[in-house]
């Protein structure tokens, strides 16, 4: 045979060689290779490889596998029992060390448990869809002229309709419109709902099973609706309601064609009802026909098995190209996002509900990991420190015949026992901090419940074992390395040489972390307070904002005006300085550039009610405010309109209309504190207000609130009162900063307590070892302060190095992450940066000296007597 020899897959050959009996290996391997070569020639490479692999796997049978000898002959159970007993005894003997270890580990493990529960819950999102891996969402990256690109989670319904009609690359296409909000009426019952519109494909793509009704036809006809179980119960008191008719928003009669199971909590799509998309089409609603109408519509598709995404993408691109050509200065680039990448996912505008950014999930995992490592270091450090006392045990075990592997497993078991004990405490701590975590920020509070499932308990256990193994690994491998001869000879510092260097590094890492977190907390909380107390340029104190919620605002105003506590009352379409904004380009007659200008509508009472300072011109007056605007100073400056007096009565163009400037107010910040002041225009005239601003003068807030609430219920019994004090509103707007304060605060607390505990352990240990030395020094005339200094010296270097790393690192972190986009920053001085470090060093010194003092003050005779 003169064929070229082909090499079979090497991994499988190696695997086979590894498990095959030596005496038959050559024969079998030879046969396999020969056959492989024949197959290679006759059936081609792929087949030959597949057959070869299958043959190797089928070799896994008793007649072929060799006997793996290792430790087959040891008495496992007895040894493990012995290990556990020894571990328990050594835990009991060193109560201080054990409790330091257990407490330190449990504190950090509580954080770990939190992270595990959180992450496993977040990743359970949308995992119940049977077709999950084939579901994709079509996203839109929208570029407007001069305004950069915004990434939207949405797509216009037109995209969905055209795509499903003209292309066949997707198996199912479900456009979703999130605009079915309003009241459903059944006789006396009125329930306001948040529903969606979609088509029949919706039920094929997603796993939202119908209890009643036919998913093939439920949403075929216009003016039909599928309710959720829950909504059906609330309306009818039963779920079998197919065929009933409801009134929607006092206009449409909707026929119920199905009842769906409630969407599970871990679905990012949440709805009370699904209306037929066809309704929008027959109504000829612009939502369904406009390419640019995409603010609340989504497109989900089911990709056929084995279909390449490229084809779908190119179909979508083709469609987008045609539509983009019709609109000027507006380009939509469609993209595909897998269902699994939606939640948690990258931030996009107009998500369906709250979507946890994957950034948040990752940072929580990283921070938890850091804290856990810090606690593992404690265990490692203290175990190494203690190892001298246990070196005799190791020596004896080795002489009697213990293998290194057995010694390692002994010490690992000890560590795992400690971490399992810590798990019990950690579990209670976890229960304690859980409610706090749930209110951390709105991402967390809206998406997670931190429910404990069996799976999560299993993770907890695995986690504890892993932590134990991690903590025990270093001490175990160090102790098992010892040579019996040198131990039994009584060389006292067998380990100290290597061990101490490592201990110092680990302690330094711990203190760097503690200081770093502490400094971050200081900085972030200062920034937070700064933002809350920032002078916005108008007065927010004692202002209660009531959301109008679609009611007749005049009725509400009349009702509120009755209360003596209400000293001022005004209306607006928006609230400034809490994160939402509306803007457009404004132009003056002067042919200068147009500028982005923020705006909202106010009534004639607003400016005085909110304490805006008018520096030129007049306020709005009732009935004659049409076409007139009040602007701020920044607006004049950016459009070169001269001084406030000069600017009066000048004309500007805004929203394609001409306006006359009648007044100028002092600059104020209508956006968040981290953004710069911007040009602003107040408009008035006819508008539908969203908020009523009540300025209150009252000492009894509860009483006033209940009066307001009562008045509200009289006017609108169907909706709850939504009212919030301006200061609370602002606090909510900065909740991201406040959640950073909480997170770093917790982590700093944990890291500091762990490292101080560890330090205490080390200090106890060092004084114990050097007790005789200290006593002799004392006898020879050393003062107490000499002794304290002697022991603290080695730690001092660690602290200085830690501070030198932690301060710049924390400063950098603060500037890069929290402050990256902020314009108005706090000033950072010496104390903000080094205060935390100094405080921690002070605590650390106190810890060390407490131990040293005890030793130094004791009676020398006691310590030297017994030798």
């Amino acid at each position: 045979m003169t064929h070229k020899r082909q090499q079979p897959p090497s991994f499988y050959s190696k695997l086979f060689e590894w498990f095959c009996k030596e005496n038959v290996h050559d024969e079998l391997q030879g046969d396999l290779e020969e056959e492989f070569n024949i197959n290679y020639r006759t059936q081609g490479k792929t087949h030959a490889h597949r057959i070869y692999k299958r043959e190797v796997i089928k070799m896994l049978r008793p007649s072929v596998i060799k006997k793996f000898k290792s430790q087959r002959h040891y008495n496992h159970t007895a040894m493990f029992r012995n290990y556990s007993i020894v571990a328990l005894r050594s835990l009991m003997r060193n109560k201080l060390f054990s409790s330091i270890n257990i407490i330190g580990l449990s504190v950090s493990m509580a954080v770990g448990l939190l992270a595990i529960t959180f992450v496993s819950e977040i990743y359970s999102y949308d995992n119940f869809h049977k077709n999950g891996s084939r579901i994709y969402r079509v996203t839109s990256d929208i570029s407007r002229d001069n305004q950069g690109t915004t990434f939207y989670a949405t797509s216009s319904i037109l995209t969905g309709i055209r795509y499903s009609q003209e292309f066949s690359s997707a198996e199912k296409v479900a456009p979703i419109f999130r605009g079915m909000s309003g009241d459903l009426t059944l006789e006396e019952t009125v329930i306001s709902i948040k529903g969606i519109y979609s088509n029949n494909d919706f039920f094929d793509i997603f796993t939202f099973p119908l209890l009643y009704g036919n998913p093939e036809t439920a949403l075929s006809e216009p003016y039909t609706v599928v309710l959720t179980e829950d909504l059906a119960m609330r309306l009818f008191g039963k779920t079998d309601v197919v065929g009933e008719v409801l009134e929607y928003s006092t206009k449409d009669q909707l026929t119920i064609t199905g009842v769906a199971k409630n969407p599970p909590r871990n679905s990012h799509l949440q709805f009370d009802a699904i209306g037929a998309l066809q309704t929008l089409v027959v109504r000829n609603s612009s939502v369904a026909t406009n390419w640019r109408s995409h603010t609340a519509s989504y497109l989900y598709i089911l990709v056929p098995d084995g279909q390449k995404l490229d084809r779908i993408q190119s179909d979508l691109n083709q469609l987008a190209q045609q539509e983009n050509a019709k609109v000027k200065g507006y380009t939509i680039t469609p993209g595909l996002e897998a269902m699994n990448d939606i939640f948690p996912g990258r931030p996009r505008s107009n998500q369906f509900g709250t979507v946890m950014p994957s950034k948040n999930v990752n940072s929580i995992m990283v921070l938890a990991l850091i804290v856990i490592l810090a606690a593992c270091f404690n265990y490692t450090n203290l175990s190494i420190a203690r190892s001298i006392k246990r070196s005799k045990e190791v020596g004896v075990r080795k002489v009697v015949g213990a293998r290194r592997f057995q010694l390692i497993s002994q010490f690992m078991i000890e560590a795992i026992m400690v971490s399992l004990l810590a798990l019990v405490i950690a579990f209670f701590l976890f229960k304690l901090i859980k409610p706090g975590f749930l209110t951390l920020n709105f991402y967390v509070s809206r998406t997670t419940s931190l429910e404990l499932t069996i799976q999560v308990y299993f993770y907890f256990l695995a986690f504890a074992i892993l932590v134990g193994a991690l903590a025990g690994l270093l001490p175990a491998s160090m102790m098992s390395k010892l040579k019996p001869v040198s131990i039994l000879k009584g060389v006292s510092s067998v380990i100290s040489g290597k061990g101490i260097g490592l201990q110092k590094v680990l302690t330094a890492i711990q203190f760097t972390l503690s200081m770093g977190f502490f400094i971050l907390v200081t900085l972030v909380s200062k920034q937070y307070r700064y933002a809350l107390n920032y002078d916005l340029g108008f007065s927010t104190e004692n202002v209660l904002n009531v959301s109008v919620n679609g009611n007749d605002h005049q009725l509400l105003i009349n009702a509120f005006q009755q209360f003596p506590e209400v000293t001022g009352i005004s209306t607006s379409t928006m609230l400034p300085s809490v994160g939402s904004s509306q803007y457009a380009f404004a132009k003056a007659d002067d042919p200068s550039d147009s500028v982005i200008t923020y705006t909202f509508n106010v009534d004639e009472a607003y400016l005085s009610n909110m304490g805006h300072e008018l520096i030129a011109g007049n306020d709005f007056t009732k009935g004659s405010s049409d076409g007139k605007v009040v602007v701020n100073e920044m607006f004049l400056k950016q459009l070169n309109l001269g001084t406030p007096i000069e600017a009066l009565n000048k004309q500007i163009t805004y929203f394609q209309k001409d306006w006359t400037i009648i007044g100028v107010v002092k600059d104020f910040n209508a956006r968040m504190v981290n953004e710069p002041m911007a040009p602003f225009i107040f408009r008035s005239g006819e508008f539908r207000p969203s908020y009523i601003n009540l300025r209150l003068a009252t000492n009894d807030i509860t009483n006033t609130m209940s009066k307001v609430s009562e008045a509200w219920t009289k006017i609108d019994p169907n909706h709850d009162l939504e009212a919030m004090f301006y200061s609370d509103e602002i606090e909510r707007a900065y909740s991201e900063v406040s959640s950073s304060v909480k997170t770093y605060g917790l982590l700093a607390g944990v890291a500091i307590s762990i490292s101080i505990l560890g330090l205490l352990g080390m200090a106890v240990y060092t004084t114990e070892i050097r007790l005789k030395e200290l006593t002799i020094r004392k006898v020879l005339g050393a003062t107490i302060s000499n002794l304290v200094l002697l022991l603290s010296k080695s730690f001092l270097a660690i602290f200085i190095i830690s501070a030198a790393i932690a301060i710049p690192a924390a400063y950098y972190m603060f500037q890069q992450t929290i402050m990256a986009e902020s314009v108005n920053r706090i000033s950072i001085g010496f104390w903000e940066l080094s205060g935390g470090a100094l405080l921690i060093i002070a605590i650390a010194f106190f810890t060390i000296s407490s131990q040293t003092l005890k030793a130094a003050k004791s009676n020398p005779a006691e310590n030297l007597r017994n030798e």
Partner: protein
Amino acid sequence: MKGTHLGEFQEIVLLTIMVLNENAYGVSIKREIKSRADRAISRGALHTALSRMEDKGLIKSWQGEANKERGGMPKRYYEVTNKGIAALKDAKDIRDQLWNEVPKLRLQHNYA
């Protein structure tokens, strides 16, 4: 039967080895069984059968030559021992006897 009861698969392997005469080794046995009985067996399964029968003394084996295609690994040739032939004969006798006892009428009836 003296404890040399043959399994069905073992019987086929033994016969195949005898058919192949001088050239019976792993690959050739496998291929022969595949072509005659249309039965795809894994080399592992064949090994189990061969090693059991060798333990029972039904076959014996010797190491043969190696070649490049086998990655330099030697072949192992198999040969049926007298004991093996006796066991095969026993098996055949039992079957022949049973076949002879089957009523003629029934056979015709079924084949018809």
